[in-house]
């Protein structure tokens, strides 16, 4: 049975799209047929991060409005078999995402995919509500920063009251915390909330900690999801997160400051 995963946060710019691309790619790399859907109507970006922006012909809203079928709109990934992208519409109004329309498309995708990853827009408006409405599981992307944590808690409240699982009194949406843009050096200096602090406040299981990393910008510049960069800290942290999501028990890495040589410490770097 296909699983619908929403990647959400409330706050913008915390790493939802980066995470959606990495997690979807990781699931496909591990052999699961996966589609990642951009719910950010009007601000399409997942296509850039996935590196398929030049191949967009039809989009999610076209499929909802039956102006194209799914087969025409799904973009097959160039690198990984089993991986598909459904881009957001750039021009239509946000009301285009209706409960019925989104539900119909997701039902159709469920028939042929193992995982459906929904990249939520920021905020708590229509787009964000639609992205989480049908979710079975939720990855809450949070930065170790006061407003991001508060917004994550808000989104948890919405998952617990406004999702179809809440409305129909089904088993609740399974929630995971993904702490991103983590900077151990600043945590050590007492300037940034620690993993423990955020876990204590949000009280949901920790899927992974993604360090603040130059590899992320490089990856989006190139249009290659950062999980492909197996040398990088962020790439490895995402790979671990995917394995944990699939049930592996792995220790969390990149929580400590990477040691620098004495010279580098004295003369900067």
């Amino acid at each position: 049975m296909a699983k619908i995963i929403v990647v959400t946060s409330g706050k913008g710019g915390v790493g939802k799209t980066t995470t959606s691309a990495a997690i979807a790619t990781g699931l496909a790399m591990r052999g699961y047929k996966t589609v990642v859907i951009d719910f950010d109507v009007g601000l399409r970006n997942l296509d850039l991060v996935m590196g398929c922006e030049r191949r967009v012909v039809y989009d999610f809203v076209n499929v909802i409005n039956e102006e194209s079928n799914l087969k025409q709109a799904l973009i097959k990934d160039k690198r990984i078999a089993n991986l598909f992208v459904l881009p957001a519409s750039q021009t239509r109004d946000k009301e285009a995402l209706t409960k019925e329309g989104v539900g119909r498309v997701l039902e159709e995708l469920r028939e042929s995919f193992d995982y459906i990853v929904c990249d939520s827009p920021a905020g708590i408006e229509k787009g964000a509500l639609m992205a989480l409405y049908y979710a079975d599981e939720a990855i809450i992307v949070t930065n170790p920063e006061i407003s991001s944590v508060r917004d994550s808690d808000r989104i948890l409240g919405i998952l617990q009251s406004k999702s179809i699982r809440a409305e129909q009194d089904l088993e609740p949406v399974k929630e995971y915390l993904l702490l991103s843009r983590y900077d151990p050096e600043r945590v050590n200096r007492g300037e940034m909330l620690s993993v423990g602090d955020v876990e204590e406040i949000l009280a949901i299981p920790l899927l992974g900690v993604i360090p603040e990393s130059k590899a992320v910008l490089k990856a989006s510049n190139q249009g290659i999801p950062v999980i492909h960069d197996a040398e990088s800290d962020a790439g490895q942290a995402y790979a671990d997160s995917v394995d944990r999501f699939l049930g592996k028990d792995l220790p969390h890495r990149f929580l400590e400051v990477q040691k620098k040589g004495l010279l580098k410490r004295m003369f900067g770097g």
Partner: protein
Amino acid sequence: MSFFEIFKNTKKDASASMAKERLQIIVAHERATRDGPDYLPALQRDILEVVRRYISINPEDVAVNFDSLDDYAILELNVTLPETAPAQE
């Protein structure tokens, strides 16, 4: 990091712990009100205004809690008065 910063480094700037404390309070407050009816914030403002006609209190001194049970609901109002409540003129 400069040469001198190595020695400064042990000194902790405690702003993260402030962030944590503030978060714990606001998140607990928002959790307590989020399952309640939409009129709660307005109710809280009205109560604050009425009490302030007699005693000067701060917004955080009025706590409104809503608990929805099986066949009834409880609306809990808590007004904390300052120790030496100066009466408004």
